[in-house]
């Protein structure tokens, strides 16, 4: 996947033109800037500050936001700002992992399904139809509940339910690519389906998959947080955004900051990914130019 991506990137992209087009799209720029802030806060800041998110300080229990504790403290005096930074590594890391896994698996299954056609294709697509016909969030919740409450199980449940979207997307794209001359030629020369998939199909269907994946990251962050909120994801005392909002629930009326700031972090990050995804879609889809 990475190799294909870099090959795609090196295939003579006109960087100046791209920069100009991104610059002309305020949505993309806003998304990029917001994402930059997130990457700085979650990726770099925890290392620069070098503070343990789990240090207990009972003298500073439930302190309101101040200069010494930007986002206040929780019921055992842990600094919420530091915990939000560290929690981001969990929440965003998990979301990126889920999206990467489901996009890769879905692309391979969808690509093969489209290439092979026939009975295999029909069987795979009917199965996907069934999964897609069920409200995805409810199915994810049921699966996570069935697997038992833990972050790992939540990740598995979300990834499984998100696969069909990518299968359908990449199959549709593959059906188009399949008819191209170079794929026919590769077939005539006896290339195996997996080879054709890797060399000819995946590089050509990657861009809609990447758009979908970018848009998905925001949704998955919300999903992970939601599952953690109802007790099916990260377990306390883990610093994860949804679990933190949930932990602050009992204090919400008097210590609003406990839940408010982790939630704000979810909102901010999710907006960043959604704007970026929208922007990329506009850039890659000429039909959408000037539309939503």
């Amino acid at each position: 996947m990475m190799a294909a991506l870099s090959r795609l990137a090196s295939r003579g992209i006109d960087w100046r033109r791209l920069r100009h087009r991104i610059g002309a799209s305020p949505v993309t720029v806003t998304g990029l800037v917001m994402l930059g802030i997130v990457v700085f806060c979650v990726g770099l800041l925890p290392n620069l500050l070098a503070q343990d998110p789990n240090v207990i300080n009972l003298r500073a229990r439930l302190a309101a936001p101040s200069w010494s504790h930007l986002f206040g403290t929780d019921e055992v005096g842990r600094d919420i700002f530091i915990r939000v930074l560290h929690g981001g590594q969990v929440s965003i890391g998990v979301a990126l992992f889920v999206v990467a896994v489901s996009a890769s698996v879905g692309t391979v299954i969808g690509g093969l399904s489209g290439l092979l056609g026939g009975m295999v294709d029909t069987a795979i697509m009917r199965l996907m139809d069934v999964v897609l016909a069920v409200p995805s969030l409810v199915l994810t919740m049921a699966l996570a509940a069935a697997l038992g409450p833990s972050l790992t199980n939540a990740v598995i449940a979300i990834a499984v339910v998100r696969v069909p979207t990518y299968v359908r997307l990449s199959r549709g794209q593959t059906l188009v690519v399949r008819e191209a001359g170079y794929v026919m030629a590769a077939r005539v020369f006896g290339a195996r389906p997996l080879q054709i998939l890797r060399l000819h199909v995946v590089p050509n269907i990657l861009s809609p998959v990447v758009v979908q994946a970018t848009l998905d990251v925001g949704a998955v962050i919300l999903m992970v947080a939601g599952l953690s909120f109802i007790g099916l994801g990260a377990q306390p005392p883990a610093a994860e955004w949804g679990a933190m909002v949930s932990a602050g629930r009992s204090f919400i009326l008097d210590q609003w900051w406990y839940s408010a700031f982790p939630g704000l972090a979810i909102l901010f990050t999710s907006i960043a990914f959604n704007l970026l995804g929208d922007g990329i879609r506009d850039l890659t889809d000429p039909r959408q130019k000037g539309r939503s």
Partner: protein
Amino acid sequence: MSIVGMLRRRLLFLVLVVFGVTLITFAVSHLIPGDPARLLAGDRASDELVAHMRLKLGLDRPLYVQYARYMAGLLQGDLGTSIRTGRPVAEDIVAYFPATLELVLTALTMAVLVGVPLGVASAVWRNGWIDQIARTFAAIGISTPAFWLGLLLLVLFYGWLGWFPGGGRLPTGMAPPPPVTGMYVLDAVLNLEWGTARAALRHLVLPAVCLGFVHVGVIARQIRSAMLDQLSEDYIRTARAAGLSRSRVILGHALPNAAIPSVTVLGLAFGDLLYGAVLTETIFAWPGMGAYVVNSIQALDFPAVMGFTVVVSMAYVLVNLAVDVTYMLLDPRIKEVG
């Protein structure tokens, strides 16, 4: 394809969906090491009692026998017995369903009432300030964690301002109206109990806003895009040239045509609303199916969770089928594809 043909095919698909959903969740649930029999019997129960419970629940049978039993029950409307409440799951769901329906319908109505005008305005004044606001609003809407929004609404409107109650469906001590539909506001109005209706409505506001908020943006975006398609059509220019006023053309001609494709979005939103209700009901202590399923999850009450999933999935497929049928009836040009 005729409507009858489509109905037949889609109902068959419904059977497939129920089969698929139960099979997946059933298989997964039996991979976990948790022992419902021990949970039900309690921590300090003797081994004999646990064994007896296991026998009673049929957990000693092979997995496929358990599944076959479950499906046989399902065909007769039996969703098994809840481990937590000890009552049949189907009864529990019927009892909790009206509260959820009331919440979901109110949220959807509010989202449509705000989302449609917003979408129309942003298509008419495309790229103007109202369009920018609507689009920002949509982006924020789909990115907002509903459970967090609910908590903020509680802090602001219950904790600080005191405008709305903090949870439940009615004030403690107030008797619910005589049940007709199970939806308190409607029942109270039908029984002319205005005081109860007002109280129930006040309790409904915050949860419905919390649940509907996300969908305002989704609906506005859909309407905007459909309106833009319509506004560029020839008949709009013709109507304008014939001397009809701009507002008449927009509201009388373009909007009805734009609304047709948007109906399908409502059907799809229904699934998200049901999940959203799970989170919202938990926060606002709203005694519906969502709160029921969260309590069941925390009690490892698997029959209840599975019953909820099956019922919700069926409802979702049926609602979308109804939407598609409406869609075909509204627009005779449409033949079902795929």
